C-alpha cells in the first residue's frame, strides 16, 4: 500500500509586518502622497534612519523619478506641495474653530415648576456623550439622555434644573469633562412653548 502521508503539512505564510507612518497612517513609502510629507519625513528620520536613507537618499530620489518626464515630475511636486499647504490650513482652521466653540447650557421650562437642562457642544471637546449622559444621570439621580435637537446637533438632556451644578463640574474638570476649558461655557434660559399653543 502506498504511504498515506500525502504532501507534507504546509507551513502557513507569516504575516508581513508593515511599518505604518505614525503621522499619516500610510505605509512609509506612500507618505509623499499624504498631506503632511515634511512631518512624515522628520518622523521617519527619527524612528528608523536606515529606512529613511532607503527612500529619501539621493540615489533613491533619482531612481524614483523613473518613468515620468521632467515637466510631469515638476507638476507633480507642485501639486503635492499645494495639497500639503491646503491640508495644513484646514487643520489649523479646525483647531481654531474648536477653541472658539462654546458649550451651551440651556435651562428649559417644561411645566411651571419643572425644568430640563440641555447641554450642547460637548462633542467639540472630545467628550463621549453617552458616557457623559450616564455620568450625569448617576450624579444627579435623574434621567439623562443624548438626543438630536432640531438643528441636528447632539445634546445631553438632563431632567431637572442642574445648570448651576454642571457649570461647577466643568470648572472643576470632574470625570470625563476633563478637556473643557471653563471660559467657553455659556448659560442660556429658554422658555419652550409647545407647538400649537
Amino acid at each position, binding site marked *: 500500500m502506498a504511504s498515506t502521508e500525502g504532501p507534507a503539512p504546509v507551513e502557513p505564510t*507569516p*504575516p*508581513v509586518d508593515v511599518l505604518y507612518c505614525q503621522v499619516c497612517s500610510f505605509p512609509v*513609502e506612500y507618505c509623499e*502622497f499624504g498631506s503632511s510629507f515634511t512631518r512624515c519625513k522628520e518622523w521617519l528620520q527619527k524612528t528608523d534612519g536606515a529606512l529613511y536613507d532607503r527612500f529619501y537618499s539621493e540615489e533613491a530620489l533619482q531612481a524614483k523619478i523613473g518613468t515620468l518626464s521632467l515637466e510631469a515630475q515638476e507638476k*507633480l511636486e507642485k501639486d503635492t506641495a499645494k495639497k500639503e499647504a491646503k491640508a495644513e490650513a484646514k487643520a489649523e482652521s479646525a483647531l481654531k474653530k474648536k477653541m472658539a466653540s462654546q458649550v451651551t447650557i440651556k435651562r428649559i421650562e417644561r411645566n411651571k415648576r419643572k425644568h430640563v437642562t440641555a447641554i450642547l457642544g460637548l462633542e467639540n471637546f472630545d467628550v463621549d456623550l453617552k458616557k457623559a449622559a450616564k455620568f450625569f444621570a448617576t450624579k444627579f439621580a435623574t434621567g439623562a439622555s443624548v438626543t438630536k435637537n432640531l438643528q441636528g446637533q447632539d445634546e445631553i438632556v438632563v431632567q431637572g434644573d442642574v445648570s448651576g451644578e454642571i457649570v461647577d463640574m466643568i470648572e472643576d474638570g470632574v470625570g470625563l469633562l476633563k478637556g473643557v476649558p471653563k471660559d467657553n461655557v455659556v448659560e442660556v434660559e429658554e422658555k419652550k412653548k409647545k407647538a400649537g399653543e
Partner: protein
Amino acid sequence: MFKKFQPASDVSGQVSVKTSVQRGIRSSILAQWRITPETLEQIWPKKESLTLVKCREHISIYTLHGEPLIFQHFDGPYFPTLRLLHKYPALLPPVTIDRGAIRFLLAGAHMMCPGLTSAGGRLPAAADALPANTPVAIHAEGKEHAAAVGILKLPTEDIKRINKGVGVETVTYLGDDLWKLQTL
C-alpha cells in the same frame, strides 16, 4: 466604495454570522483568493466567529474582534481589507499602475487601461490572464505594498488590446474611510 463612510451614520447593524454562512464564506475565500487553508487559519481561526456589520448600499463588512477583515458588495466577490492585504500580500493577483496614476488612485479614481499598459504599469502575462470581475491588488510602480484593492472590469487580455476606458474599478484605497477605521 468607501469614499464617504462614517461609522456613526452609515452602519445599520452588527450581527453574529450563522455557522453555516461562515462555512460558506470560508470555502468561497479559499476558492476566490490565492490562499492556503493554513494561512486562512492564521488570519481567521476555525473556532472564531465573524461579526457581520451591515452598511448602507448593501455593503457587508465582516470583522473579527473588531478588526475588519473582509467585505462584499451585494453578493459579489469577497474582498480583503487593505490592511489585511498588506499583511498577506499574496492574497490577490497584483496589477501595477504607473507613477503618475498613483495620486489619482489615492483620491479614489478608477484605473484606466493606459495606466496599466504604459511603461510603468504591469499586467499578468498572457499565461496567467485573468477574467473580468476578478478582485485584484493594485500595486504602484516602485512601491512594495499595495495601494488599493480593485476589481477587473475587463479581462487582462482585453485591457492590453483595447487600452481604452476603465480597466480596474477601485474598491478601496489607501486613506479612504475604511482605511481610517481600525476597529468597528
